[in-house]
């Protein structure tokens, strides 16, 4: 592992926050009627999914 402890902790923090957001966006999208809002949420889901995958790879690198 070549990351500093505090950055790993920050990434962990962001990953937890983003996981929460993604879960909420995925479930709430079903409750939304407006097409435009649905589109924005889908976009948020796509971006968050990719970001979480990036975090997962950093976190697994950081694991000793």
């Amino acid at each position, binding site marked *: 592992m*070549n990351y*500093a*402890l*505090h*950055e790993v902790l920050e990434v962990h923090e962001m990953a937890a926050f983003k996981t929460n957001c993604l879960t909420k966006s995925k479930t709430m999208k079903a409750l939304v009627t407006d097409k435009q809002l649905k589109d924005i949420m889908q976009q948020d889901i796509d971006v968050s999914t990719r970001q979480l995958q990036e975090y997962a790879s950093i976190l697994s690198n950081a694991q000793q």
Partner: protein
Amino acid sequence: MNNDYLDPINSLHVPELADTTFAMDFLLRAKEGVRNTAVALTESASPEVRELLRNQLIQGIAMHQEITELMIDKKWFHPNELSEQYKLDQLSANNTLMIGKMNLFPVDTNRKGMFDRTPDEH
């Protein structure tokens, strides 16, 4: 070291001490600047304001990076070796406490008399 600010023994290691302190101040300012700009960005609605703040945010992050690298380079900052950093933290806290105990400005610092009239009035 002793508490006499005029004793030359106290000037030992002053350059290192001063520079680490100033660099740390610089780093903290850069950090706070990035955070402040990001908060302001999430409050702004006008496109011009957003554009301006976004550019300044990117610039701020770059400046923060440069300061971090300089400090690591000069061995003033050890983000990857926590016990090294611990030693520095404790040393600078001790030194600063010592400065805090010194009587640095023994005479009256009121210099308002130097500013109360223009030279022509004499």
